[in-house]
């Protein structure tokens, strides 16, 4: 077995680190909040800087303007960005959507969207959840009907990240009114600027806006702005789910390693002339324990990456890694709050705030992670049924 990176891959990692040294992440203006997954804030300026390096399109096939670089390069890029705390929040979404457009999109969509993604001009929101369709996504009510050369889209989406500052959304809608459940759904690419779009912010418990609710009233979407075959949107979504979940989470390990580094730094600092927290046996043991869990999480994600790269079944491993990442994140941030004591609750910028107030913010964001992208309950059911072969619970029909 070889867990290492090839010399060419190591050289690329060094190239990314050089870039980050030359362009310190904190110098880029942020235009959307950091949701704590490890991908940092939404920064269009930083996304464009990545575009200038041609890193946003490097894994695409050459005929679509890419360099056909293997998946490991993307993994290295995101890993290095996360370790540096860079604001690359929109990047996983860009990778997922461009991948989907290359696999399933029409020529019109490829021509229009891909160059914008490559430059860092386009970022995306996902329109899946609805007020009455959360874990039961197939209960969705948003629908679209063909009218000449356009789909006419009506409905309401919710919990869409960065939708108010992104440029396009991928909206799952029922396009066959006679269909039920998983058939007759289509994935439409929707331009935020179209008439009939109303994108409203939802202030989260952190005090910041990350999610939006989207009201779509007679929005006219070009007929060929559908991803894949109309009516097959859901099976397409399922096919991409392992990679979506992987790219949505795997940088949580380097992120948590960075947070742990901050906590070690804090524990080593003498407190008002007394001994540092690091001398306390319980503190040492708990921080070391967190380090072992982070190392195990990283190994599990690398296993998932390898399975995906080889095209082997990865569903169980990816879901297990997501569950572990999100629950471990909550434990590490909770440990941080405990170590910081009364300082832990002081916000960034506040007098006496420790560690730049980062623990307070990330502690709060961590409570959304076991819900977003499929709750931990959904992930565990997925592991049990799809990886371990246990029987599915009978569905209750309404």
């Amino acid at each position, binding site marked *: *077995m*070889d*867990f*290492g*990176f090839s010399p060419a891959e190591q050289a690329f990692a060094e190239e990314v680190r050089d870039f980050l040294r030359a362009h310190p992440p904190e110098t880029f203006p942020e235009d959307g909040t950091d949701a704590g997954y490890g991908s940092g804030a939404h920064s269009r300026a930083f996304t464009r800087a990545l575009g200038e390096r041609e890193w946003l399109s490097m894994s695409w096939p050459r005929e679509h303007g890419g360099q056909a670089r293997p998946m*490991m390069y993307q993994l290295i890029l995101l890993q290095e960005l996360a370790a540096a705390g860079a604001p690359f929040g929109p990047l996983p979404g860009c990778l997922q959507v461009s991948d989907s457009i290359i696999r399933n999109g029409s020529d019109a969509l490829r021509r229009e969207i891909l160059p914008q993604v490559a430059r860092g001009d386009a970022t995306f929101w996902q329109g899946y959840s609805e007020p009455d369709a959360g874990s039961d996504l197939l209960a969705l009510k948003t629908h679209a009907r063909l009218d000449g050369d356009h789909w006419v889209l009506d409905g309401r989406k919710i919990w869409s990240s960065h939708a108010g500052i992104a440029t396009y959304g991928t909206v799952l809608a029922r396009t066959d009114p006679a269909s039920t459940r998983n058939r007759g759904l289509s994935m439409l690419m929707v331009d935020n600027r179209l008439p009939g779009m109303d994108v409203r912010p939802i202030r989260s418990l952190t005090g910041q806006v990350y999610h939006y609710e989207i009201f779509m009233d007679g929005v006219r979407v070009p007929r060929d702005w559908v991803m894949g075959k109309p009516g097959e949107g859901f099976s397409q979504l399922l096919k991409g789910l392992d990679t979506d979940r992987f790219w949505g989470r795997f940088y949580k390990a380097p992120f948590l390693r960075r947070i*742990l*580094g901050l906590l*070690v*730094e804090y*524990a*080593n600092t003498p407190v008002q002339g007394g001994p*540092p927290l*690091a*001398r306390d046996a319980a503190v*040492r*043991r708990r*921080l*070391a*324990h967190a*380090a*072992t*869990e982070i*190392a*195990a*999480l990283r*190994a*599990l994600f*690398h*296993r998932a*990456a*390898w399975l995906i790269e080889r095209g082997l079944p990865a569903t*169980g*491993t990816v*879901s*297990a890694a997501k*569950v*572990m990442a999100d629950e471990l994140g909550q434990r590490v941030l909770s440990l941080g709050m405990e170590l910081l004591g009364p300082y832990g609750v002081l916000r960034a910028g506040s007098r006496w705030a420790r560690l730049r107030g980062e623990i307070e913010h990330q502690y709060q964001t961590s409570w959304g992670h076991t819900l977003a992208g499929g709750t931990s*309950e959904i*992930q*565990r*059911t997925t*592991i*049990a*049924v799809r*990886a*371990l*072969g*246990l*029987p*599915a*619970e*009978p569905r209750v029909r309404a």
Partner: protein
Amino acid sequence: MDLSLSPAQQILQQSARTFLQQRCPPGRVQELALDPRGFAADLWKEIATLGWPGLLISPELGGSGGSVGEVLALVEELGRACFPSPFVGSAVIATAALAAAGGRRARELLSALAVGERICTLAVLEESGQLDPDALAMPVTAPGRLSGSKLFVPDAHAATDVIVLGRGPAGSTALLLPMDRGGIEARPLDCMTGDKLFELAFTEVDTRPEDILGAPGGGWALLGPAFRLGALARSAEMVGAAQRVLELCVEHARVRVQGGRPIGGYQAVQHACADLFRDVESARWLTWEAGWQVEAGRPDVDAAVAATKAYCGEAALRVARRGHQIMGAIGYSEEHPLHLFHKRILAASLDAGDAALHLETVARAIGLS
């Protein structure tokens, strides 16, 4: 990155799985566990013909000069079968120390270990129970007389030789003694895990200059890395045992019907099984990654192995403990194999350094002052 088993590892894994299924079924494990002097001399001879005890011994001494990866592939299978044997103590830890020490006696012993003629145990821990050279007090001089007690010595009833680590004039010093040297007495410790542990009492044991393994004062330099390899092997053993617990639980959840359907169709049981899967897989890949680091000679191996041993112990014990809940009452009975795996994991978690020791190594590695 390539996370597949090499062809040699695959062959070893397959042949080990087949052999252990045929020759060491749960009934045999049970029988050996319940017998206070249980040792499967027949199985040890058979695995010697398969070359397992010589896996880490160089070909010129009759071994096969295998890699760390092969040891992990094999020991994971030993764990999966809950195979009771002195393998990790003798064929991994003692073998690694003897190979590092070199010298005529060590080489002679390695040749005999490779063909299964002799078995070597380790007498290191004392009353503190800590695997730490600074915690060792037994005075060691050679030539001289050795007196005192070593605790938690594994398989002393089956061993022909013992490596004793004590405190010499030049610092921690290792001796290699035959078990039949006058004045060595093995007193069994009654142990719930089914492991055979002993107090090894030394009374005025005659020691000679040629008994010193390696250099005087260099005992820990030999045994530290050997125990590191042992910690890695114990991690793989726990992964294998936890994998088997997962399989037993999932199988039970599929076939056990309550309330008109298999209990594995209820979310409460499904989610418990999913957690077992997470724990087994994360422990497995952490172990293999640490094995790769050891093999590649990376600088941070101490911390990597320490983190692995601490994590695998915790994760595998979680699997065993949760497994009891999934398995229900039948898993509480002596005849069901679940408790054997649980106890094997518990024993492995304590051997080659417990969680407290390894977490302190990790604490220093992450920069805690």
